């Protein structure tokens, strides 16, 4: 058996063993189709541009059969990642909805929030169209695998004009056992509706989280989306979100990458309506042998769209980070205003960060820019702090914290910012040097 077949074999087998389920016929057909595509595509190779900087070895060396069932855990195990404010809370353990740990509470009128499995029973219509769209992403083997194997996830749907005052908190926890969890998520915001979404991923032991989501924002809808990836140090985390923005829709996101030995966060945004605004911000703080890639793609398909991106990376030890950002402007997307910046801090001679910001502009009346830096701490700033009596390690720590804080400052909501800051501070406190 060739290497490629050996890699996908366990997943093809797992799909075969999955057996008949009480699912709608269209879904079974989709799963078949998705599995076929995964088998055709195989694992991505580093010869593919989009995967050039991502070392998938730890995923390829082992196999992670899909988790067969949910696991029971103590509430205390989830405490570290819990959003401290009020929220509609939906918890998934090993890729499955956990009613015991969830507290969805009373939802405002016009708001639907449930697990994906529950939605398949109650509102299959919501998923049917959304799944078709996800399948449209070409060349994404892990999204196809997800489409074939997913059992659960979450669905948040707001009717036009609906508003969520409290955030929706989706917390996923993996309990190891070398299993994979394929989460299928869906966020549908009707015209003029608004919501705040917090996603957290954490766990213990060895597992693979493979999340795929569709976020669809109708005319004038607004979503604030915070993601905390703090998976177990021996876990793998791959996530891809496809974001569609309608006319004057607004998407503000921040993705914080702290955990997992191998991770990839991929945001594919398409500004389909005129005047849409898309913020793709984030930070990755890496140490040890961590491998993390952040990918953003902002596709301006309509005039007067705005994109703002700031990703900041810190790597120490032998960690390797990568940022691949693309801003594409279609011929008709005049008056596009897009800017992307990736700034990185290397704290060890063995750490490495690859950065590849790209503009692909086919319209002539646009304002687009990008920038990228990779460097060490600023000597002059370091001396300034030391000259006031701060010992060198403390001064360095302060500057690293400031570097990360500068990224977090993109989050307007102070409660959300504070939530992520706790985890940034914990990372800083655990620094090696």
């Amino acid at each position, binding site marked *: 058996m060739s290497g490629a077949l050996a890699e996908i074999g366990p997943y093809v087998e797992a799909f075969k063993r999955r057996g008949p389920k009480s699912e709608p016929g269209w879904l079974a057909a989709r799963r078949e189709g998705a599995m076929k595509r995964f088998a055709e595509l195989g694992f991505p190779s580093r010869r593919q541009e989009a995967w050039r900087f991502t070392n998938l070895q730890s995923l390829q060396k082992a196999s992670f059969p899909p988790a067969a069932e949910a696991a029971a855990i103590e509430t205390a195990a989830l405490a570290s990642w819990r959003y401290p404010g009020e929220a509609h809370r939906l918890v998934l353990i090993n890729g499955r909805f956990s009613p015991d740990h969830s507290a969805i509470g009373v939802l405002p009128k016009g708001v639907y929030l449930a697990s994906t499995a529950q939605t398949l029973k109650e509102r299959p219509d919501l998923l049917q169209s959304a799944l078709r769209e996800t399948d449209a992403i070409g060349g994404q083997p892990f999204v196809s695998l997800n489409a074939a194997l997913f059992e659960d996830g979450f669905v948040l749907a707001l009717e036009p004009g609906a508003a969520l005052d409290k955030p929706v908190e989706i917390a996923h926890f993996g309990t190891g056992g070398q299993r994979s969890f394929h989460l299928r998520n869906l966020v549908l915001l009707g015209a003029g509706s608004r919501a705040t979404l917090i996603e957290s991923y954490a766990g213990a032991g060895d597992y693979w989280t493979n999340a795929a989501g569709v976020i669809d924002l109708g005319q004038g809808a607004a979503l604030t989306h915070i993601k905390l990836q703090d998976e177990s140090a021996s876990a793998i985390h791959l996530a891809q979100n496809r974001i569609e923005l309608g006319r004057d829709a607004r998407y503000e996101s921040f993705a914080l990458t702290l955990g997992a030995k191998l991770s990839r966060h991929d945001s594919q945004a398409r500004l389909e309506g005129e005047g849409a605004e898309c913020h793709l911000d984030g930070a990755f703080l890496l140490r040890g042998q961590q491998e993390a890639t952040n990918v953003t793609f902002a596709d301006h398909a309509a005039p007067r769209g705005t994109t703002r991106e700031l990703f900041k990376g810190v790597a120490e030890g032998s960690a390797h980070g990568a940022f691949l950002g693309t801003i594409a402007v279609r011929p008709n997307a005049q008056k596009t205003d897009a800017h992307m910046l990736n700034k990185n801090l290397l704290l060890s001679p063995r750490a490495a960060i690859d950065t590849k910001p790209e503009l692909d502009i086919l319209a002539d009346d646009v304002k687009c820019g990008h920038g990228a830096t990779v460097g060490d701490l*600023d*000597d*002059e*700033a370091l*001396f*300034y*702090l*030391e*000259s*006031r*009596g*701060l*010992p*060198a390690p*403390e*001064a360095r720590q*302060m*500057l690293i*914290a*400031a*570097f*990360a*804080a*500068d990224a977090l*400052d993109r989050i307007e909501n102070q409660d959300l910012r504070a939530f992520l800051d706790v985890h940034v501070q914990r990372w800083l406190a655990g620094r090696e040097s």
Partner: protein
Amino acid sequence: MLEIKNLHARIADGREILKGVDLEVKAGAVHAIMGPNGSGKSTLAGVLTGKPGYEVTQGQVLYQGSDLLALAPDARARAGVFLAFQYPVEIPGVNNMYFLRAALNATRKQRGEPELDAGQFLKAVRAKLKLLEIGEDLLQRGVNVGFSGGEKKRNEIFQMAMLEPKLAILDETDSGLDIDALQTVAKGINALRGPERAVLLITHYQRLLEHVVPDRIHVLAGGRIVKSGGKELAAELEKTGYAAFGDAA
């Protein structure tokens, strides 16, 4: 307080900038170091405070009787040496208040004094802010971020007032200040004067010396002290300029 003996120092490209500086500053005294551009004034400030990029090749600096150059920059600061920067560095993301409290507590810890909590610190801050006419809002920003030139210089003196150093080295603190700001800064410096402290004012112009009257003035030219005198030397320099010392290099 400070004894500099035959100090030679060079910069990274090997050029010798200080070529045998001798200077003694006693506790309670304010000394001014004047001189033309490029004479080594800022190098002297950098060497005394441990700024990277300088190599001392000869000579000695004693601070309170012990070898100052053996200490790391932060240890010098905690021992009571303060540098007011000619160009204060902007540090986005490091909150002014947070930074200053950490700095003050590092020094207090070294002296065996209890650390200040947020409330005690704020009380101390407010008294000094008033003296330097700095708005409290400035302290909620990143260190020097978005400060005007004058605000940066006032912030240096404010930090000095908070840290209460024994030896304050002010590098061109007067440059770029309008007359009001100059008077405020001078007030801050004068407030620090005392029998236990010494001040080294590094300046190109005599302007500041009208407001902070020094006990001694030294002319640094070509990397050496070429002339020393009382406060009247400033007026003399104002008339004759540095041309007479220009060839000393």
